[in-house]
């Protein structure tokens, strides 16, 4: 499989079904998406639209799918160190110190290099000084920073973010959005962020993939050609946000329009 020039991740005609005892649920239908190296992609959709499933397919956690999902000329069939993932819950091991949680995914034969890599990543996410703390001693935002550091230690090509800020309060969420942009600019990792927050999707993404539900399909891809740092209250930002907003709520407004 030859990927188009400049694309790291190619998804073609992807279908994913879940079989239950009685019936079949189509989670993803005919997804086509090319993601370029170093790109920041936001995926928005209602809950249950299959956006998390799409991320899990890319992660290699769901392997009985149809179609092509190719990263760097290799079909994805299982997890690999070229992809990192951050979940909505931090999923830190409660019995390990922060530094050991960050080191969890590192091979043991690295020796002194390991300590350096761990410290580098703790510094990267701004948690210098918390190396010996335990997860329950951290706030939600800090725990999520550790999860990001843990996902980045093996320098993955692609970082998959599954609603990573969904459980945080509004102010922490904004702070974490700025933080992930800083990390993205420093690490040049391809980012794929799943969210149901339109504002977040537009603030972070180079492109916003809008998904519709049941079955999950790509409804529209909206490019966000705005320079960073982005101003959430600027005219252009609001226009893009409005366009995406109408993708979700236009259906509901139509009958109203006809009534007039």
């Amino acid at each position, binding site marked *: 499989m030859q990927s188009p020039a400049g694309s790291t991740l190619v998804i073609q005609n992807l279908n994913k079904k879940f079989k239950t005892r009685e019936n079949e649920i189509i989670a993803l239908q005919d997804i086509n998406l090319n993601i370029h190296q170093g790109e920041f992609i936001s995926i928005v959709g209602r809950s249950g639209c299959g956006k998390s499933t799409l991320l899990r397919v890319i*992660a*290699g*956690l769901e392997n009985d799918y149809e179609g092509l999902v190719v990263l760097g000329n290799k079909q994805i069939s299982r*997890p*690999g*160190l070229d*992809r*990192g*993932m951050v*979940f909505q*819950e931090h*999923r830190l*091991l*409660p*019995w*390990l110190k922060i530094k*050991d949680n960050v080191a*969890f*995914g590192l091979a*043991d034969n690295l020796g002194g290099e390991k300590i350096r890599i761990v410290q580098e990543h703790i510094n990267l996410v701004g948690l210098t000084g918390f190396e010996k703390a*335990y*997860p*329950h001693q951290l706030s939600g935002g800090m725990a999520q920073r550790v999860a990001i550091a*843990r*996902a980045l230690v*093996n320098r993955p090509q692609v970082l998959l973010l599954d609603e990573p800020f969904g459980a945080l309060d509004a102010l922490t969420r904004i702070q974490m959005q700025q933080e992930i942009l800083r990390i993205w600019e420093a690490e040049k990792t391809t980012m794929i962020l799943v969210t149901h927050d339109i504002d977040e999707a537009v603030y972070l993404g180079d492109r916003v993939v809008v998904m519709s539900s049941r079955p999950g399909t790509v409804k529209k891809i909206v490019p966000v050609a705005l320079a960073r740092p982005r101003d959430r209250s600027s005219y252009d930002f609001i226009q893009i946000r409005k366009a995406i907003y109408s993708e979700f709520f236009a259906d509901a407004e139509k009958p109203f329009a006809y009534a007039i």
Partner: protein
Amino acid sequence: MSVIRKYQFVSPAVKRVSQYLILPVAILVIWQLLSQAGLIKPLILPPPTKVAGAFWELLSSGQLPKHIWISILRVSEGFGLAALVGIVMGIGIGLSRTLDRLTDLVIQVLRPIPPIAWIPLAILWFGIDELSKIYIIFLGAFFPVFVNVIEGIRNTDQRFIEVARILEVPRWKLIRQVVIPGVLPYIMTGLRVSLGVAWMCVVAAELIAANQGVGYLINDARQLSQTDVVLVGMITIGVTGKVMDSMLKRLENRLVGWKISYSGD
């Protein structure tokens, strides 16, 4: 208003300690009063003062320390062995489906047999000395640890397994850093249940066939109608069991300090 003022003079520490003591002290006082009023026959239940007297007598004669020490030794040996074998077998069987299937039927059939039912066989096999007691205690204390370890492994958080898969964490590291620490709280719960069962078993074994130990002390005193000595033996078991459980609880807090548990309002 008066309620608020009252509490200002009682420090929280004093309040907490007195909350622990209210019930036992009340039981002792009522027990003593009922005995002095002649409502309880001394042969059925001697008053606390008489039990305390018997306790002091047994303590100064060295009888009580000798018997309790023998029982503690038996419990420690049987329980220690059960803990070791229970944890090792539990982890092995918990991690391997094949091992699980190979051993499942035998274990499931052996498990419902009360350890006490093993006493006749244990005496036939090991005589009435130490070995038969340790065997009974081992049988009783083994299953709570074993079952809890397997339960703990089966309950390993799948979300952590996913994280490990994504990071390509090797299997042995997964076992060492995810499975075993996750099982620790279950092991501790199992150990505490096991210790209780171990005390039940030692006393039962000593009641039936022994010439020393607290169980023997109790049975001997019953035959001589020394109800106060019977009570001394019983209370000693209770206190010793409680002390050993507290030690395990301390160990638990040290080992699984990361776990924030709910301790009631």
